[in-house]
Structures are given as C-alpha cells and as structure tokens.
C-alpha cells in the first residue's frame, strides 16, 4: 500500500516538473482562463514581393488564433527591428526584442514563388526557452493562401497546447439563399461557401462521416423525408434510408460503421441504428412518446436523445447495448438538440425559455449544468468542433438566421455565415 503511495507521489511530482519545464504549455480545456502573449509578424518575401500573400495570410491566421481565446496578440505597432527580418532559424532571432515586448511566443515566416508555385516557410518560436516549437513549409498556389493559414493555425495550437486546432476543418449547413433549403459547406471562418445540393424541396440537418468526405442529410426530394448520403467531391448521391414516414436526424457512429436516426415506420418516432447500406441493425427506443435527435457518445456506447416520454421534451441517454434509458435534464420545460462533446465530458443542448432558446452544457451524469449563451435571439443546434474547444450554433434574431461560433465556455461568440439568407443547422466535420 505504502509502495503504491510512493509511486503515485513520484508520478505527481514528475508531472509537476514536466509542466514547469514546458514554459508555455497551457491547459487546453479552459480557454480564456490563461492566455499567452503571442506576436504574429508579417510574412517576409524571401525573394521578390508579391501582392495578395501577406495580408490574406495574416488576416486568416489572426482571426483563427483570436477565436481560440488562448492568446493575447501583441500589438504589431510596437514591433521592433526583428519583426522585419527573415529568421528561419532560432539562432537568428533576436529573442531579447520579443521578451522586451512581453511576447512569450512569436510567429515568423517568409514566402517565395517558383513560377506559379508558392512556398511559405513558417516558424513558431518559444521566446522564453529561445527554441523552435513548430516549423512548417507549405507548397501550393496563391489561391491556397487561406487554406495554408488555417492549417498553420492548427499547428500553432498543437505546438502550444499539445492538441491540433480545428481551423482547417469544414462546416456543413442549411441555407435558403436560392429560395429553397439546400445543403452548403464552408470553411470554419465562413469563407468559401459552396452549395452541395439542388433538390429544390426541403433539405435538413446534415452530419459528416467521421471517416470519409461524405455527408448525410434528410431531403423531401422524393416526396418523403428520406435520409440521403452524398460524397462531397464526386457529388455522388443516394438514398440511405427511405422507410415510410420520417427518416431524420441521421448521425454517424464514431467509427463510421452505423448511423443513428429517427424512423417513424411504426407510426411513432423511435431511434434506430442502421448500417451504411441502409438495413436496420437495431431499434434503440420503444415508447409511444416522441424520440428524436440522437447524438453519440465518443466511445459509441451511448446516445443522448430528446424524448417527451415524461411530458415535456427533455434529454435522455440510452445505452446502445442494454437499451437502458436514463433522464439527463430536469430543469426547464423544453430541452432539445443534444450534442455530445468529442471529449465525452459534456453534452451541449438548447433550452426553450421565455420563447427563446439558449445553449447549455451538462455533464453526462447530469451535474454541473451551465448556461453558455445569453442575450436576445434564439440559439439552437449546437455542434462541437472536432477538438471539443468550440461550438457552432444557429442564431435566430430579428427574423434572420445565421451561424455563429463560440468557445466551449460560451465566450468569443462571432458570426461566421455571410448575410443574404437564413442559415441554420451547422455541422462540424472531423479533421479534414
């Protein structure tokens, strides 16, 4: 027993020293609580300068890292001479200058062109320990500049927190800008929106495959709300579930082998598991009440869902193996759209109070309920980023619906979808 205690003590001590040694390692699950002073310098031309590189890159990178809430960006107006120098090795950097400005980390980089080919060199340095944290070279075309910036932002997050950022992933959503509800996809910052469907009926509620570049969604294209599957790059499309009645709220299991969804083939909505060929594997709920909106736990063993079996809509959890159902939410009169965090520790949901929805989180054991959003407008459909650091949701305010992103603690909320239509039902892809 005492032997075990000594071992535990050793482990605790070791981890203490380790965390001290890595000067800028920070707690990833608590964004906003502790920030790193970070200097982002402009890209320097390695050979001749070219228009459209520096500003485009800077804006995307700053926006991503600002959204993370992990950094205090050092004011570029205060930068000294080192900011303008190309320093692709840590020995060339004048760390004293950056220390003087209070920066604990600095991003430097340069670019050059070989004909059409663009080469961008990027470095993330630790000012305190004077060493290189992340070095990356990106080769692409000028048109790839935003993508490169997002990808490097993910690497900066990895270098400083030990876990990749989500900025190079994608957001699928539903928009009515053509006059009909169709499926769209965009970058995490709202850039490059593309319409993926042309069904000219009603398209609803998308979800990304965790394994393939593929989306599932519900559409009335054939007259019944059927579940469709679409390969994003080939555009190939097929019906995955076309049972009579509802085929809605499809969600891929974490291993991508099954889909949980709501079917009403028994004249009542129930949660089912189907295979990727559309065959029914298992019925998970059996109740005359409404059962909808499944969301997988990251281990694939449980599903949160919405049911009115106790009167008002509330969030329940069903065990996929023994089908035992437990009630999760008890507060409020209308709780819906649960989304289980990819880390497994939280379930986000929306609650209707005073005619407006707000987003809450709760632990899967029903403790520690917190309200994340406040203020005017209805906030619905929360979905997590693949790293669990952020939530996207749709906001309905002044009769206009738009998609917003915020940190998992509710701070930093900002609109990402452009004006010009009602945008709802965001879904965040996995790593792209």
């Amino acid at each position, binding site marked *: 027993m005492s032997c075990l205690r000594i071992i535990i003590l050793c482990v605790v001590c070791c981890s203490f020293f380790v965390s001290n040694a890595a000067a800028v390692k920070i707690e990833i699950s608590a964004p906003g609580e502790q920030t790193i002073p970070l200097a982002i310098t402009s890209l320097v031309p390695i050979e001749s300068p070219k228009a459209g590189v520096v500003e485009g890159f800077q804006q995307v990178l700053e926006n991503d890292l600002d959204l993370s809430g992990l950094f205090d960006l050092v004011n570029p107006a205060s930068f000294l001479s080192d900011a303008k120098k190309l320093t692709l090795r840590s020995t060339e950097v004048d760390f004293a200058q950056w220390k003087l400005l209070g920066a604990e980390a600095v991003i430097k980089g340069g670019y050059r062109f070989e004909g059409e080919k663009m080469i961008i060199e990027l470095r993330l340095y630790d000012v305190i320990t004077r060493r290189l944290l992340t070095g990356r070279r990106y080769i692409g075309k000028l048109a790839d500049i935003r993508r490169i910036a997002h990808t490097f932002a993910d690497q900066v997050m990895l270098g400083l927190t030990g876990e990749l950022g989500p900025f190079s992933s994608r957001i699928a959503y539903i928009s009515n800008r053509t006059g009909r509800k169709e499926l769209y996809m965009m970058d995490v910052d709202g850039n490059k929106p593309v319409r993926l469907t042309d069904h000219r009926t009603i398209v*609803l509620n998308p979800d990304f495959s965790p394994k393939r570049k593929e989306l599932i969604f519900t559409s009335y294209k054939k007259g019944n709300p059927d579940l469709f599957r679409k390969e994003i790059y080939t555009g190939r499309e097929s019906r995955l579930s076309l049972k009579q009645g*509802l085929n*809605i709220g499809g969600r891929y299991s974490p291993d991508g082998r099954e889909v949980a969804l709501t079917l009403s083939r028994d004249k009542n909505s129930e949660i089912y598991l189907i295979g990727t060929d559309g065959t029914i594997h298992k019925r998970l709920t059996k109740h005359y009440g409404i059962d*909808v*909106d499944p969301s997988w736990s990251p281990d694939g063993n449980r599903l949160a869902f919405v049911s009115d079996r106790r009167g008002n809509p509330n969030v329940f959890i069903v065990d996929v193996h023994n089908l035992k159902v437990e009630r999760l939410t008890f507060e409020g009169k209308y709780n819906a*759209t649960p989304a289980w965090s990819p880390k497994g520790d939280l379930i986000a949901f929306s609650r209707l109070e005073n005619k407006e929805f707000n987003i809450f989180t709760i632990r899967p054991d029903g403790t520690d309920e917190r309200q994340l959003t406040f203020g005017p407008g209805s906030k619905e459909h929360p979905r997590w980023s693949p790293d669990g650091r952020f939530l996207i949701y749709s906001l309905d305010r002044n009769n206009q619906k738009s998609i917003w992103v915020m940190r998992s603690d509710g701070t930093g909320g900002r609109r990402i979808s452009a004006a010009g239509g009602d945008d709802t039902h965001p879904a965040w892809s996995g790593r792209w």
Partner: protein
Amino acid sequence: MKNLSAYLLVLIFALTLLVSGCAKEPVADEAAMMDGTTEVAVVEEQAMGVVEQQVDEGAAAAARAAAEAEAAANRAANDLKRIYFDFDQHVLTESAKDQLAINAQLLKAAPSVKVKVEGYCDERGSDEYNLALGEKRALATKNYLVSLGVAAGRLSVISYGEEMPIDPANTEEAWAKNRRAEFKAQR
C-alpha cells in the same frame, strides 16, 4: 369485191355486237355493286341511329353520376378545411373535431378521392422534434377521420414539421395559424 365488202360489213357488225356484248356485262356488274353498297350504307345508318339513342340514355346517366362525383371530389378538394392544434400538442381540440366531422362527410361523398394529411408545427421548438410532432398531428387527424368512417387506405400522412409556415411572423397569432393539419386531395 362486192362480196368482200359485204363480208367485211358482216364482220364489223359481228365484231360490234361482240364488243358491245362483251362491254355490257361489266357495266351491269358495276350497277349491281353500287346498288349493294348503297344498301349497306343505309343499313349502317339505321343501326347507328339506334345505337346512338341507346348510348345517349346511358351516357346521360353516367355523365350525371360523373358530374356528381366530380362535384363531390371538387367539394372534397376545395372544402376540406385545415384544423389547428395547441402548442406542443397533437391531441385534437373540440373545434378541430367539429371540422373533421364536416371533412369526413365530404370525403365519404367522394369515395374516389385520396387525401394526403399534412402535419405542421409552429417554428418554436427543435426542428427534429417538430417533424415528429407534425407526424403525430397528421396521424391523430387521420385516425379520427377513420373513426368517422373514412377508409384508412384513402388517407396518407406526411409531416413537414416547422418547415412551411403559413405566416412566418414571430407572433402568437402567426404561431397559432402554423400549428395545423392540411388536406391535399389526390385524384
């Protein structure tokens, strides 16, 4: 020479007789054929006149029945009034039941008409939940019509949830209008 002329005359006469005799027969045939056709045509005319009269009587009855069915179908298509629900409810209100009794009479009068019962919700509440709720509204409506004697096979259901509001405004009045079941006649 005289003998030859006489001989030729006799020959020509004989030929003429022969030719005219030969030609006469087809002329007579033609006349007989023409007589025949005329006769057939007359018979046909007479028969058609009789049949026409008979069809006339049947068609009038059928047309009357068709017109009545058409009128009943039109009444069903046009006069089937939508019904409304309370918030987050799929239980039929008394006024909804009264309207459904009228709708059931219209449907029973037009047995050829099939109807799609469409369930709708107001925009409050989650979309998925509302799709399920809209279906429950459509099913409750269908079941009540069946209980009033409408054949179940004539009634199909579909839910549009909160997707197609009648009034997109954010008011109690608008929401009340949007929580409904509609009837689409299919012929």
